[in-house]
């Protein structure tokens, strides 16, 4: 019986230009196999050889996973790690320098938890996702505790982090939500803990929500990406900001509408979600 090794040697001897993904197996069958490997093992899979690396990153891989019914749903959480609860250090972590604030992943499909291998994330950074890309925005420099404008994007389909163009303003504790393929950020604090009145889209600066004086604002995308709703404190004519309001951004017309709730609904919203029925 041929061993995997002898099969590899046969292949080398034949000096074929095409290298099979799995020696001895047709490539379409091999891709079907790779597509069914759970996402948690993809990083290691891409480090096996060139063939696996490109097969497991190609857009066709996403279709193969969908066709095989192998899609998984992941929820990304930015959180402080609990050093008391952490097990032995993962390889690559600098001793005694484990990131206090980082990216945790809950796999809804498999029920597994893991920490995303990422270097230190700015403290209190926020995240939002567009397609398979996860953006980590703003937060505090862990050394100076000053807000940063940095945006980093993890392409979950190939596991690569990239620096993206920074936001126009350094922000912390702002609202952020995805709508129509863009990420909208609004409000938050600047480095003097002043409330920021501006909003911006991740890849283009958008108009600011009129009158938003939110320190801690919240945002949610509604209607499958047609609109973004931001909640926060509104600046009154006299400059006061006791009242809260909603700002609705229309993605198509790029215009804001201010919604002043009746007094009994004008309290600060700690959390928002959107439902279409």
């Amino acid at each position, binding site marked *: *019986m*041929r*061993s*995997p*090794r002898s*099969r*590899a040697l046969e292949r*080398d001897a034949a000096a074929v230009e095409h*290298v099979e993904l*799995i*020696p*001895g*197996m*047709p490539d379409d*069958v091999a891709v*079907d*196999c*790779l*597509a*069914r*490997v*759970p996402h*948690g*093992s993809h990083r*290691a*899979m*891409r*480090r*096996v*050889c*060139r*063939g*696996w690396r490109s097969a497991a990153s190609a857009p066709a891989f996403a279709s193969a996973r969908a066709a*095989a019914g192998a899609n998984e749903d992941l929820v990304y959480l930015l959180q402080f790690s609990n050093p008391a609860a952490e097990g032995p250090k993962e390889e690559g972590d600098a001793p005694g320098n484990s990131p206090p604030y980082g990216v945790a992943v809950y796999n809804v499909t498999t029920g597994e938890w893991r920490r995303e*291998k*990422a*270097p*230190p*994330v*700015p403290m209190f950074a926020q995240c939002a996702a567009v397609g398979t890309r996860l953006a980590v925005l703003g937060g505090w*420099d*862990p*050394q*100076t*505790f*000053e807000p*940063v*404008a*940095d945006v*980093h994007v993890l392409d979950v389909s190939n596991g*690569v*982090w*990239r*620096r993206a163009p*920074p936001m126009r303003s350094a922000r912390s504790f702002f609202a952020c939500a995805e709508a129509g393929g863009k990420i909208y950020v609004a409000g938050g604090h600047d480095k003097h803990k002043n409330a920021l009145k501006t909003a911006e889209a991740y890849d283009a600066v958008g108009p600011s929500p009129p009158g938003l004086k939110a320190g801690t604002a919240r945002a949610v995308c509604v209607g499958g990406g047609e609109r973004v709703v931001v909640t926060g404190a509104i600046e009154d004519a006299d400059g006061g900001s006791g009242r809260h309001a909603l700002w609705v951004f229309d993605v198509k017309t790029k215009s804001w509408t201010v919604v002043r709730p009746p007094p009994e609904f004008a309290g600060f919203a700690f959390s928002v979600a959107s439902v279409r029925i």
Partner: protein
Amino acid sequence: MAAATDDAGDSNEMIRVVSSDGEHFEMPEAAANLSLVLRHMIEDDCADAAGIPLAVVAAKPLAKIVDYCTKHAAKSSGLTIEEAEELKRFDAEFIEVDTDMLYDLLVAADFMGVEGLSKLAVQRTADLIKGKTPEQNRETFGIVNDFTPEEEEEICKENEWAFQITKPPSRLC
């Protein structure tokens, strides 16, 4: 209990198949029908006493496939929970094979169009890959590491720089 009312019709009839290395096998027609290729040949009246030749399937994997199809054809519809569990156990034991046999089954199931077996073998391969280091996977599947040392270094490094904070650390007063 035999599945009496499936689309196999005269399921008592035995179908003969011949492996690439000339060995003869027999299975009930209902079992042969689980292979798309065999079903088409039976429908086209190509199944005769000489047996259907399978040019690319050797005797060893063919014996396994006949075994698989016979078991699954006998329990094709109206399974009780216990029977479904038993079939699951059969599948789990059936696919506990070495990688050579696994490849042969993958290729043969693909060629013969035995969908259930294809899925089972593909999932088994995926399970072998899952949770393994790159080196373990190379070993299991006889894969040559064709990354250049420069590429290796790049792969290891690719995430290191991502989270350097852009602003130079300003002094706190």
